[in-house]
């Protein structure tokens, strides 16, 4: 790829900073006005979207497609140079389009969703901040800048999850998300620094991706594996892989647009994006790739199983997000960044659609979130129902929707490389079809039976739904893989795998129809599974184990350290020194006894000693 300057850098900077400007404007001037704040936020993200589209055309006008890197030196001294800038290439622009495109849809949707909420200006400010941070991750051209925006995204996520901070569960969920992310970011930072420290092959050390691409082939493979695994720690936290997946479920405490944008389409996909952007590191370490692949596969299966026992509509969708993220990570672990990113793109479409649909349902049923309190909504909310169906089918991977193409790309990759992983992924897909079917049949199927009026949501909310539904349908045919990685030839669809997975999906849906087609008062599965159901309800006891660890081990460690600091460092070392000085002073005070003769004695003693010293 040649660096042709056909891309206008100004467009990139505008796309970068437009949401930040929106956030600052809202925070400074418009915190009291609901309409203005929402309009400014929407304007900000739409500006970024328009700029992204323009950049997209500019990139693909050139053949081969253009890329551009521009950066300012932020910190520079002998040992360290940190830049601030962007690197635009086809991968980046595709991700940017997803973020800004899906983001615009969700911003517009939020205008309707958050209409009744009194603190919606704060919501739009925080959402704009998030958009800025996410764009920062997409555009960053070096690890340090990426890390900064990584943390910023974590911050925005915390702010938005705990948006209704008066509610204890929401506040706790925000803290939980932040803590778990912080944990993973520690490993991430270690990886970044390790990579930087070994990146000197004669031109000095660097954080820039372009520089590191040249360096990586020369590095010791063992250290490279360790670095890759450390960087993967960041992915584990941000993209909620096992064992740091626990925050994503509780993150559903945030408003539904937040769940749609952050915890489905973009932020959690940042890990996948990182893996693709810096794939040159992971691709050269087979061990790391194996670890990544298995982590993804296990996450996918575990989440799919847990979704069966969940009754909150948003939590079911959260588990499905977890499962699909696992699938994406699996794709990347099988050295298929193209397949992983393809699935990320289509997933963004239909997951956002599903979440927005869920939000529509929640608003319509007056903030009811338990699926067993909803029934037969298809008849009452046709647009929502149909778009939700499209999303469900796309998620299950039914031909010819977008999800079919991307999911089978990954499954095909697994089939040819590693049978175990393929079996795990296929099982997870089967479960996915089952619980999504369960969700759809319980909420939308059958006869409506609501005591109060349920009607379709306003246009401002249904329009984004339709937009996303269209994208979910045609997503497989617009040649996304070609745009993501122009220099790679797209893989042929493995027909065998496609047929198997279609059969599995249909079986899953059929099975769920059998159990849930006829509406019952509560989940019949609970009785059938018995004790195993309890295990599922407790989310395989991850939270309980972590809670026990924090309460008993970590707290005691912290108390020990606190006591150590108080007693040893403060009382003994610092206090000891001051006491020493004070005691010394008290002792030497006796020399000032006021007797002149004594002074004369000391004086003469000093002279004699001095003489004796000099004499020798």
């Amino acid at each position, binding site marked *: 790829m040649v660096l042709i300057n056909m891309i206008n850098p100004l467009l990139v900077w505008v796309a970068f900073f437009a949401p930040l400007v929106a956030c600052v404007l809202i925070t400074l001037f418009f915190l009291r006005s609901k309409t203005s704040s929402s309009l400014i936020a929407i304007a900000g993200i739409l500006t970024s979207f328009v700029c992204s589209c323009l950049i997209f055309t500019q990139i693909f006008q050139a053949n081969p497609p253009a890329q551009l890197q521009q950066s300012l030196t932020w910190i520079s001294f002998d040992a360290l140079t940190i830049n601030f800038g962007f690197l635009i290439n086809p991968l980046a622009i595709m991700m940017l389009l997803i973020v800004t495109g899906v983001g615009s849809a969700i911003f517009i949707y939020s205008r309707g969703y958050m209409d009744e909420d009194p603190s919606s200006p704060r919501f739009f400010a925080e959402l704009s901040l998030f958009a800025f941070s996410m764009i920062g991750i997409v555009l960053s051209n070096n690890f340090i800048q990426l890390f900064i925006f990584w943390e910023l995204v974590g911050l925005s996520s915390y702010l938005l999850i705990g948006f209704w901070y008066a509610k204890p569960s929401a506040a706790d969920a925000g803290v939980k998300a932040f803590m778990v992310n912080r944990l993973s970011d520690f490993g991430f930072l270690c990886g970044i620094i390790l990579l930087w420290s070994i990146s000197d092959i004669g031109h000095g050390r660097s954080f820039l991706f372009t520089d590191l691409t040249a360096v990586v082939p020369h590095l010791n493979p063992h250290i490279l594996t360790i670095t890759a695994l450390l960087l993967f720690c960041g992915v584990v936290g941000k993209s909620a892989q096992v064992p740091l997946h626990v925050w994503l479920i509780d993150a559903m405490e945030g408003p539904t647009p937040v769940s749609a944008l952050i915890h489905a389409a973009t932020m959690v996909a940042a890990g996948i994006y990182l893996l693709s952007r810096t794939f040159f590191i992971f691709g050269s370490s087979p061990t790391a790739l194996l670890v990544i692949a298995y982590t993804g596969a296990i996450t996918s299966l575990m989440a799919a199983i847990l979704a069966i026992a969940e009754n909150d509509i948003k939590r079911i969708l959260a588990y499905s997000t977890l499962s699909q993220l696992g699938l994406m990570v699996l794709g990347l672990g099988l050295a298929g960044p193209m397949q992983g990113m393809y699935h990320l793109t289509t997933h963004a479409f239909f997951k956002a659609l599903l979440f927005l649909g869920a939000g529509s349902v929640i608003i319509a049923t007056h903030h009811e979130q338990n699926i067993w309190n909803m029934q037969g909504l298809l008849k009452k909310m046709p647009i929502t129902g149909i778009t939700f169906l499209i999303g469900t089918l796309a998620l299950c991977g039914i031909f010819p929707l977008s999800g079919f193409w991307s999911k089978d790309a990954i499954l095909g990759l697994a089939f040819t490389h590693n049978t175990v992983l393929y079996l795990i992924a296929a099982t997870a897909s089967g479960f996915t079809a089952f619980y999504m079917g369960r969700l759809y049949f319980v909420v939308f199927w059958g006869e409506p039976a609501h005591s109060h009026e349920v009607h379709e949501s306003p246009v401002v909310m249904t329009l984004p739904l339709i937009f996303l539904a269209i994208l979910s349908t045609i997503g497989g045919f617009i040649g996304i893989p070609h745009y993501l990685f122009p220099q790679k030839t797209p893989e042929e669809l493995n027909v065998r795998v496609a047929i198997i997975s279609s059969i599995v999906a249909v079986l899953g849906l059929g099975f769920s129809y059998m159990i849930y087609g006829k509406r019952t008062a509560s989940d019949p599965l609970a009785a059938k599974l018995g004790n195993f159901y309890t295990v599922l309800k407790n989310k395989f006891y991850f939270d309980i184990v972590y809670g026990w660890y924090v309460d008993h081990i970590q707290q005691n460690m912290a108390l020990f350290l606190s006591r150590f600091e108080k007693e040893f460092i403060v009382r003994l070392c610092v206090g000891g020194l001051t006491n020493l000085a004070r005691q010394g002073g008290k002792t030497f005070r006796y020399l000032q006894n006021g007797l002149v*003769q*004594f002074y004369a*004695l000391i004086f*003469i*003693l000093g002279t*004699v*000693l001095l*003489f*004796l010293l000099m*004499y020798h």
Partner: protein
Amino acid sequence: MSLYFFYLFAGILIFASLAVVLARNPLYNVLALVVAIFSLSCLFVLLEAFFVGMVLLLVYAGAVLVFFLFVVMCLNLNTITLTSAQQSRFRLLGCTVGLMFLASFGLAFKSFIRAQTMDASNIRGTIEIIGKILFTDYLLPFELTSLLLLIAIFGIVSLAQGALSTGKNTENL
């Protein structure tokens, strides 16, 4: 022959110095110092420094030490005899330092080999010679010392005046 005289006067000097330091009665201290000055004066004569020997006797023993005696008598200190309980707290330390000084002096002395073999010159510090030098080469210091004595008188008078007006035991002055 003069060596015997030297040892005689040296011995008296040492004994008298010890008496100055060790005697209990302040009167004995002063009188011991008088004896010491006498022997010192004799030693000066041995060194043929006649003028300074006489000046020592006249000024020191004659005036200064008499002044000391005046004070001792006026303040009735001759009746006070220091008991051993009133000895200084630091006498052990003081004696040690003194011995250390003596030791360091001895060390310096040992290395000064010429002291053992030097021959005396034949100058004589007679009053004519000293007087001539005093009034020619050293005239300025000579005049300045008179100024110094004047200032000393001022100091003493002012101290005594203050003591007169505020003192408790005024009947002794």
